[in-house]
């Protein structure tokens, strides 16, 4: 059993490493992105401070927690590829051009290949465009720091955030098998992800009803859940439940991806490539 497993893992590690390196080539782009994330972080920080000055406990957050939430959002939006741009963009493009046929030929799981590539990308974006703006935010506004358990939970939650986001993006990209051009669904996905991840406004500030729905959706895994773990709103069993919901979404969505891919493969074969 251990024989065939080991090469598989090193293969996926190799894919992830190449993906990490691919993104690290564009230093100027990364610096420009860090600058832009920081500018948006500053704007939103002032916007939130004005809100919390009027209502110091809005959504159950203190002002300093709200500002920290802003910077966690800015740090994670590229890590989870909120507006697409990860390996799933390559997938959509390869479906459009027909190159996907080559991917299907490979003796590697297509889902595994693209997931590994996206995790490599996510790690790069987290260590650069995640950490750097957060430092800017800490210097300018002072951020809330988590407990050791909170920090550990946060890191686990971020990895799951990338997996959940990947699976959702994969499904939207796979729509290209039927629509040929996936740019429309991609825009629609950006809309949903921006609003329901907590990026524009923490989900806890949503009115009753909408809040419960938003917190249950997979998009909450992107920013809201990791942020609440960082801020100590989920501790102990509550934290395990929050991470459990992310795991549940990851499993359900990845399984759906596999099913969709199977249906699509049949379609590609029928079309003759």
């Amino acid at each position, binding site marked *: 059993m251990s024989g065939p497993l080991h090469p598989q893992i090193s293969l996926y590690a190799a894919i992830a490493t190449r993906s990490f390196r691919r993104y690290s080539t*564009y230093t100027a782009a990364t610096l*420009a992105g860090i600058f832009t994330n920081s500018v*948006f972080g500053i704007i939103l920080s002032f916007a939130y401070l004005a809100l919390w000055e009027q209502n110091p406990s*809005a959504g159950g957050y203190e002002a300093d927690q709200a500002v920290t939430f802003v910077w966690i959002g800015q740090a994670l939006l590229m890590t989870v590829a909120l507006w697409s741009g990860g390996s799933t963009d390559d997938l959509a493009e390869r479906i459009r051009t027909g190159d996907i046929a080559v991917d299907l030929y490979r003796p590697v799981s297509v889902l595994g290949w693209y997931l590994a590539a996206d995790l490599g990308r996510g790690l790069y974006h987290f260590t650069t465009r995640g950490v750097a703006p957060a430092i800017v935010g800490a210097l300018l506004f002072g951020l809330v720091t988590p407990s050791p358990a909170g920090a550990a939970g946060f890191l686990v939650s971020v990895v799951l955030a990338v997996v959940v986001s990947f699976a959702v993006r994969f499904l939207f990209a796979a729509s290209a098998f039927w629509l040929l*051009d996936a*740019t*429309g*669904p991609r825009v629609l996905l950006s809309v949903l992800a921006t609003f329901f991840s907590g990026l524009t406004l923490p989900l806890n500030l949503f009115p009753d009803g909408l809040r419960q729905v938003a917190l249950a959706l997979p998009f909450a895994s992107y920013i809201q859940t990791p942020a609440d773990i960082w801020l100590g709103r989920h501790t102990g069993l509550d934290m395990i439940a929050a991470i459990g919901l992310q795991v549940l979404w990851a499993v359900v969505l990845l399984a759906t991806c596999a099913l969709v891919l199977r249906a699509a493969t049949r379609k590609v074969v029928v079309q003759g490539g």
Partner: protein
Amino acid sequence: MVDTDTPAAYVAHAVRSYWLIALLWIRAAMAYPVSFWTMLVGGVLITFLDFVAIWLMFTHVDTYGGFTLREIALLYGLTSIAFRVADMLVGSVEKIGQKVRSGDLDAMMTKPVPVLVQLCADRFELRRLGQIAQGLAVFAWAAPIVEWTPQRLLVLVVALVSGVVIYFCVFVIFSTIQFWTTDASEFANAFTYGGNTIMQYPMTIFPREVVRSLTYLLPLAFVNWYPCLFLLGRTDPFGSPDWFRFASPLAALMLVVVTTLVWRQGLRRYRSTGS
């Protein structure tokens, strides 16, 4: 040969060329009708939810920075319309870096149409009408709070035109940087999209230095903040002179001069990749 001897003929030629190229891209987009319409609706939705976020903030407060929701909607509507129109007109200028890398810019240089016109019309996106419509809707919702007079209507129209020019210039200026660093296109987003975002809020929530910068350095406050003070008949909490409320065209004109200089400098700096 196209006759471009007189300035008027030159402008007419540029506008006509822009329209012809734009039409080409409109037809191309219509080849995928499902994508076109989902993106148009998506554009309305994404900007709509953008405003919903502000509206949701008002479920926790009554006034924000001393402004009511409708007053903020007025600020929001004005900056959104100007920004989205400019965004539609500016086309592929944001992607100069890509054009340099791919060599497309060389091809553009050989054609008898100004490069800036070609870049702006390239990949013209009609679907952005959706986002413009959302700005109009928010503005229309806020408009009844203004006691309209002929002067106020005039200030509004002038501010809208100036606003489009100001944002157009901001797009061009910060995209020109890509002549120096071809893959730093996102740097410009901080000023273009970031500019539009910051102007959606009343300036009262920002420190004085930020408002000064948005007046004297990057004059975005002339897009909506100063004109809206006039429309609402409010005094400026930062104590700026009254004539600032009518100075939007002046700010736009000065920015056009700066933009022309920067653009020419960038184009002169351009060296083809040669491959």
